[in-house]
């Protein structure tokens, strides 16, 4: 009897937690699909009674200011994030291979530095990086953003990828070497395919870092047509308190890629990496 009541209480608490966690996300999507009369109605409804894609159309079609539209911001963000992912992935793979496959003098120091560097509050670096970017002539240039995001995502990317490289049994590479493969071939044909899932997971992390970032984009970009999505959100959507339908539609569009990727990483992390490789 007591056990039954306890189980009920535990499940009820679980539902409460789920509701608290998911409700804002649900409300964002729900609001974005409601016509204005329902959004500003005196008795709010949980789900739209007459769902509409009007707000999405308003956001995606038509200019925010003359000549600049939401899709421009979306493309800017995607461009910056993809460039960050490619650079960060490449450099992280090289560095991770170094620390996972070689023993050298500064190896431990490098690993400790990776940990310490992740504790630096990036918010404190806005001022010096702003001056540096100006001096490099990268002010108001998207590549300037790519550069700083590369710096922010790299330490964690190396740290994460290191584990994936280490998980590939060294015997496979030694076997390839015995078969006469050069170092480059071994890396390209043996190590890379096996590390690929780890590289995907790491890339998604770097993507999310670049895609979500606000402060540096706010500071380093000055003309509207180069705004990334987060900057545009705070300027055009977050400040207009009357058009909540469009604000929620834009928020949903910004959130969606991150959520999809996030779920993918969660799966990748747990999937067995090279389960059959050694046996086979």
């Amino acid at each position, binding site marked *: 009897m007591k056990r039954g009541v306890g189980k009920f209480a535990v499940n009820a608490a679980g539902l409460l937690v789920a509701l608290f966690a998911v409700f*804002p996300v649900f409300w964002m999507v729900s609001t974005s699909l409601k016509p204005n009369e329902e959004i500003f109605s005196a008795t709010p409804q949980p789900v739209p009674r007459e769902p509409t894609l009007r707000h999405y159309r308003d956001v995606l079609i038509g200019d925010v200011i003359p000549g600049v539209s939401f899709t421009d911001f979306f493309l800017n963000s995607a461009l910056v994030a993809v460039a960050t992912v490619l650079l960060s992935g490449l450099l992280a793979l090289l560095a991770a291979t170094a620390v996972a496959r070689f023993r050298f003098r500064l190896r431990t120091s490098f690993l400790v530095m990776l940990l310490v560097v992740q504790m630096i509050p990036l918010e404190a*670096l806005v001022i010096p990086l702003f001056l540096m970017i100006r001096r490099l002539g990268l002010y108001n240039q998207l590549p300037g953003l790519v550069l700083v995001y590369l710096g922010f995502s790299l330490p964690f990317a190396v740290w994460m990828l290191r584990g994936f490289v280490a998980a590939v049994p060294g015997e496979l590479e030694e076997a390839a070497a015995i078969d006469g493969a050069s170092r480059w071939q071994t890396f390209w044909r043996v190590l890379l395919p096996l590390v690929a899932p780890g590289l995907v997971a790491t890339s998604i992390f770097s993507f999310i870092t670049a895609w979500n970032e606000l402060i540096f984009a706010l500071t380093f970009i000055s003309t509207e047509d180069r705004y990334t999505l987060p900057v545009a959100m705070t300027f055009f959507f977050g400040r207009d308190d009357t058009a909540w339908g469009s604000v929620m539609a834009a928020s949903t569009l910004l959130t969606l890629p991150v959520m999809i990727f996030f779920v993918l990483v969660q799966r990748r992390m747990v999937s067995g990496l090279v389960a059959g490789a050694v046996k086979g």
Partner: protein
Amino acid sequence: MTTLTRTSEDVAAGPTTARRRPRRDRLPYLLLLPALLVIAVLLLWPLGQVVAMSFHELGIRQLRGDQPWPWVGLANYAEILGDPFFRTVLRNTVLFAAANVVLTMVLGTLVGLLLNRLGRRMAAFVGGCVMLAWATPALTGAIVWKWLFDDTSGLVTWLFNQLPDGLSLALFGRTDWTGYGWFNSPLTFFAVLTLVVVWHSFPFVAVSVLAGLKSVPAELQEAARVDGAGPWRVFWSVTFPLLRPVFGILVVLSTIWDFKVFTQQYVLAGGTQDRSTFMLSIYSYAMAFSPPPKFGMGSAIAVVLTAILLVVTGIYVRMVLRQEES
């Protein structure tokens, strides 16, 4: 020279790797070089720069003409530390971080314990929902909460209007919540900001605590329960000591994150105009980027923030070392 390098390498590598085919070439350094360069130029150098800048007067004139920066020694620090407003900002930051760390840890731990108790399917469902809060970008999360607390059509405003008038009057001294500005007074602003930040950060704690619980044998807690210990006692005498390292890391990470909250604050306050709700990171930013720009002063505030976080990290490292010794 080479022999010297070789021996120190072998000592560092230890006996396990000595058996492996030794590779003593330049390759690892070459592989490491690009990453090292990026970290040095984009993280370490700016960190040194921000300290150097805090000792200089650095405004729009120095920036425009690329003139040398006048050295002012500790004047920037003397100015901010003597400023009552800075002390208010510092107090707000510390209180906010403390409240948020405690609330995040308590809620996250409770949810972690709960997920451990739930049945398989229910745990997957609740875990999935919790994961969505975690995956939401800080920016859009804050925008949605701002909409929920909107003073005319926000759901929270509607909910408060549904309270019986007598109860609402007795508790809060008002019955009509339409037009109530949640973000206009510092107290309610920080309350909502706390809600937003805790909502976004408790999932990480919950998932980490759950992972910790899965890694320790459940028999220990079971045994304590059989011996008649209540849930409170089981947690503090069995679970907590076992998961102490996990809790240590989580507290330090939460402290670091909650000390430098920026995005959510920026969104809820609608920019950097509202000085009454400033905390260190946004104060430093406003000092440097609101006209007239004072980069030296902004840097000094950023250094104070970094120093506090350094102390937190230091305490944690000592905590870990002491544990290893005993």
